[in-house]
């Protein structure tokens, strides 16, 4: 019996940190948190908008049971509102507009009537209020001693089709609430951050003579041509150090994965299959995963850079046409219905290369463009369900999905 117990314990410990295992935990035991508004400037619409954004962000950090009731109080009241007496934590904030029109926000975090955290924030214009909201959530998460949610402050870059053969490239916050169109006009697709710092990016221009990869420095707005290829050119991934790109190029109409050295401008062909090889992603410095139809349908394969040996990674799903990798983890999109056109369902699944488990991350609708955060803590994706598109955030360790509705049309490609 002892042996059995210790084996069981060994088994459970060895899988304790595996993200492919769904952990149903803590949902009821999460501490409660209410949000109180003490704003003195701004109209009700804006006050409610900020409140909603803050409640959403506090939810996404997944460490509180957040109360959704909107309540107002005075900022300097020493105790929380009577209605919130039973709450473990109360987050009170005050927004005010200064003489320069800047949005100032002060916060106080109460833990049972005692102020445990207070901070002030300021942004030059009120329409970028969502960054204050993200920053407050980041700081509260930090104060609570939880693993960093640095990704909350990262930017999403995406392209959207505005008309046939017309697109624009947009930079947004992680909820896509704030959107700034950075490349306007023309037919430009597949934007990809060029470095971790997110101050430059690559994209493919399709209205040039041959598809051309371009690099944009967003501090100087300088655009330079990198490389072009007949038929197809996509930057699928950028290495952590920003020095190696994984490209899909199509010399002689044959889409294959190439690695490209940014310093020497030299490329080498990584795949040689006579069908489709695309969407390469770094798993580590020397290992990549990519999508290939070498089995007659799109699926996920891996290989070492420079070697010709290819390994099938996924044994589930009829059509796995897109993926994102982070270390040992791969998230991929699988078509669930057998009929190509009747009520198509595309779900996201997570696998680890170290175990045989598959974790289904979504349950309904068409879920696409999965992208890991840089630290692997979260996955961002687009969900289309019942004529509504949303951006989704999956917190792997907390087993939670959050959706933010999107107002506009079709996303073509996205990077985080």
């Amino acid at each position, binding site marked *: 019996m002892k042996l059995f117990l210790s084996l069981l314990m060994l088994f459970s410990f060895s899988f304790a940190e595996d993200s492919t295992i769904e952990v149903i935990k803590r949902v009821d035991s999460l501490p409660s948190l209410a949000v109180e508004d003490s704003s003195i400037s701004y109209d009700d619409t804006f006050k409610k908008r900020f409140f909603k954004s803050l409640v959403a962000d506090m939810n996404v950090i997944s460490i509180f049971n957040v109360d959704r009731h909107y309540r107002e109080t005075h900022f300097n009241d020493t105790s929380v509102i009577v209605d919130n007496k039973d709450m473990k934590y109360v987050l009170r904030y005050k927004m005010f507009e200064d003489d320069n029109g800047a949005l100032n926000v002060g916060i106080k975090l109460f833990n049972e009537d005692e102020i445990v955290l207070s901070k002030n924030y300021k942004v030059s214009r009120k329409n*970028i209020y969502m960054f204050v909201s993200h920053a407050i959530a980041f700081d509260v998460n930090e104060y609570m001693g939880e693993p960093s949610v640095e990704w909350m402050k990262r930017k999403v870059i995406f392209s959207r089709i505005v008309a046939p053969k017309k697109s624009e490239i947009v930079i947004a916050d992680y909820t896509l609430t704030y959107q700034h169109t*950075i490349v306007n006009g023309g037919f430009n697709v597949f934007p990809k951050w060029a470095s971790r710092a997110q101050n430059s990016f690559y994209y493919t221009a399709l209205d040039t003579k041959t598809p051309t990869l371009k690099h944009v420095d967003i501090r*100087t707005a300088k655009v330079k041509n990198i490389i072009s290829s*007949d038929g197809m050119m996509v930057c699928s991934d950028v290495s952590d150090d920003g020095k190696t790109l994984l490209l899909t190029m199509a010399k002689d109409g044959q889409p294959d994965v190439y690695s490209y050295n940014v310093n020497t401008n030299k490329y080498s062909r990584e795949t040689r299959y006579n069908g*489709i090889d695309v969407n390469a992603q770094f798993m580590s410095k020397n290992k990549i995963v990519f999508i290939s139809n070498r089995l007659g349908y*799109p699926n996920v394969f891996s290989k070492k850079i420079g070697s010709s040996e290819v390994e099938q990674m996924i044994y589930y799903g009829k059509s796995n*046409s*897109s993926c994102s990798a982070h270390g040992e983890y791969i998230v991929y999109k699988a078509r669930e219905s057998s009929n190509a056109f009747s009520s198509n369902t595309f779900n996201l699944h997570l696998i680890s290369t170290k175990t045989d488990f598959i974790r289904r991350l979504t349950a309904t609708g068409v879920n696409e463009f999965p992208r890991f955060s840089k630290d692997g803590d979260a996955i961002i994706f687009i969900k289309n369900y019942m004529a509504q598109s949303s951006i989704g955030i999956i917190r792997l360790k907390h087993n939670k999905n959050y959706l933010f509705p999107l107002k506009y049309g079709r996303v073509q490609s996205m990077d985080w």
Partner: protein
Amino acid sequence: MKNLVLSGVVATLLVFSGCSSKDPVVDAPAQEVEAPVAQEIQAVETETVSNEDSLVSSETNELSMGDLEAQMSSVYFDFDKFNIRSDMQDEISTSASIAKSTASAFSVKLEGNCDEWGSDEYNFALGLKRANAVKKALVAEGIDESRVAMVSYGESNPVCNEKTKDCWSKNRRVDFKLLP
């Protein structure tokens, strides 16, 4: 209470000043908010594939280019496939003979397209393989390879936007365009 100013977020996101988002944003100095905003980049259109505009030049061969294109009907494909369907062979032969005779002065640009059901990159590759299949068929019909160029638009150039089976099948196609 310590007075802290949030500006890093603005700096990194709005202003694209390049200040590392790793730093706790609350500690950044307020001046950084005023960093110069990068202009939007206006992509320059460098090529216009022949269309109605070509009528303006009033040359006879320009005028006929649009007409010839209209005679070269699109080639349609099955879901997730890039092999030429048997019912499409005749269309390709017709287009090939036009390309060899009346349109022999132009080069041919094949534009591969897909329905909305693929995935970003995979769909582009699929569109390209479709264009490539048509190119091979044209070459087999005796057209010089150097006259044929290819491009893929994935699902971003639909001719039909309804959510029906019929509509999707219209989008899985290769279009012929003529280039002077």
